[in-house]
């Protein structure tokens, strides 16, 4: 729903102005109601805030107001990024981090969806799965790290497993809630229309649960990055977090900032991709919010 906000408010303002010029033919005071929406969007408005911050940062550094040891200048960070990319291990660190996140995410997503379907569509499945997952959810996943290290060793497997758990929980919870919260009016309709159970699931239950699934998916994306950052900074011998951890030991703030920026880019890109898919798949909802 939030993704549709821009187009909605834009069209409303357009309507408003069209209406007030239309009534201009009538003499006297025209009363056009004031819109309660914040008004037209500023083009590329979201970029203005970050741009201001960047400008302040650059100005502060140029004026010598910022301690370069604590906050290096933007150009220093940029130079470091280029140097790390061309001479250092940055490409392979990024690849390692991405691989961990992607594998963990894929496994967690699959598990979340499969379990949600099994427990949302069958009573036996629900009895077996739902309570177990609720229990799992009560334990903060990052608290499982010591146990998983003992079980799986400190290698890649344990990191991927933790990320998968961080991912599967929100996917499961939201998808399961959406599957079991299907509107009874639609159940009744499906009965009246003589749908078979597979048809009912495919044509009514699953499409109806997709909005809930996407809520879970977006939480999962955020969660997977969070899990990655924590894991890589606690115990890793490669990857972005390791790079930053080492930089911390040598007081290389610029390298830490490069790492943070890359994490930020990961987060932004993945969130945009999910939003894009969501907007495509749930295109029917766009008209609902008008």
């Amino acid at each position: 729903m939030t993704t549709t906000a821009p187009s909605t408010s834009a069209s409303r303002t357009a309507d408003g102005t069209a209406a007030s010029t239309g009534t201009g033919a009538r003499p006297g005071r025209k009363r056009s109601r004031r819109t309660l929406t914040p008004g037209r969007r500023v083009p590329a408005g979201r970029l203005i805030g970050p741009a201001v911050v960047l400008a302040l940062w650059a100005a502060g550094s140029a004026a010598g107001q910022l301690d370069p040891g604590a906050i290096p200048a933007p150009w220093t960070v940029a130079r470091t990024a280029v140097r790390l990319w061309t001479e250092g291990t940055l490409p392979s660190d990024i690849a390692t981090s991405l691989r961990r996140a992607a594998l963990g995410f894929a496994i967690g997503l699959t598990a979340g969806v499969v379990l949600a379907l099994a427990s949302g569509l069958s009573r036996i499945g629900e009895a077996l799965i739902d309570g177990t997952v609720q229990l799992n959810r009560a334990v903060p996943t990052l608290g499982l790290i010591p146990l998983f290290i003992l079980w799986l060793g400190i290698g890649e497997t344990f990191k991927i497993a933790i990320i998968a758990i961080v991912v599967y929980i929100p996917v499961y919870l939201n998808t399961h809630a959406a599957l079991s919260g299907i509107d009874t009016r639609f159940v009744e309709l499906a009965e009246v229309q003589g749908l078979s159970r597979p048809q009912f699931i495919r044509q009514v239950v699953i499409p109806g649960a997709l909005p809930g699934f996407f809520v879970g998916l977006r939480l999962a994306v955020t969660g997977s990055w969070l899990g990655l950052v924590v894991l890589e900074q606690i115990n890793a011998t490669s990857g972005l977090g390791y790079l930053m951890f080492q930089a911390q030991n040598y007081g290389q703030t610029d390298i830490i900032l490069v790492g943070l920026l890359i994490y930020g880019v990961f987060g932004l890109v993945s969130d945009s991709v999910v939003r894009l898919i969501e907007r495509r798949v749930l295109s029917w909802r766009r008209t609902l919010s008008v």
Partner: protein
Amino acid sequence: MAPHTERLTRPAVRLRGLTRSFAGRTVLDGIDLDLPAGQFTALLGHSGSGKSTLLRAVAGLDHGVEGSGEISAPERVSVVFQDSRLLPWRRVLPNVLLGTDGKDAAERGRAALAEVGLAGRERAWPSELSGGEAQRAALARSLVREPELLLADEPFGALDALTKIRMHGLLRDLWQRHRPSVLLVTHDVDEALVLADRILVLDSGRIGLDLALDRPHPRSPRDPVLGACRERLLAALGVTEEAA
């Protein structure tokens, strides 16, 4: 010829001793009712008198309700609800075709949409339709299955007066063309008078009044014969009409 005569002689819906109760409170109390095939019947009654309960029983939707009695209804039954109940994630044509398959299904769906005046709106989303259009789409969805029995529970209850009048004409036309048996639940006495050939009043769990109405169509609510019927219906409903 044979199936035709059989349709005339055998009732489409046959209820014997139909009883339904919720938590020990009896809502339908031993209803006996025959609806002849092809008849347009309206069912009136107070709010809470059990009209929807009766309709849901005939539609086979009353799972888990205490009750007894015998129901026989045709194989192909369609239900029109008070809300259009279109699936918001399907465009209009797929909505109309919900539960209908076969290779000419799309063609039949288009034809049904054309019949209710929605030709060209096949690819619209339900949220883009007005209330009346959505209800017409729902009507097309129930028609496309060529029902022998059409059950409608206050299908026009949410529509404005003008749209309602046009929908009455449409429903009557469609009935004339396809001749399903119709059971229309409504609380609007005039709607029943304008549309139905038989009007039932549900009162205290039983059919309190069973009124045959043999007037030509299209009818005007100002028809004096209908006026007399209106008074009887209102009396059966316990309402006295002030002098008009």
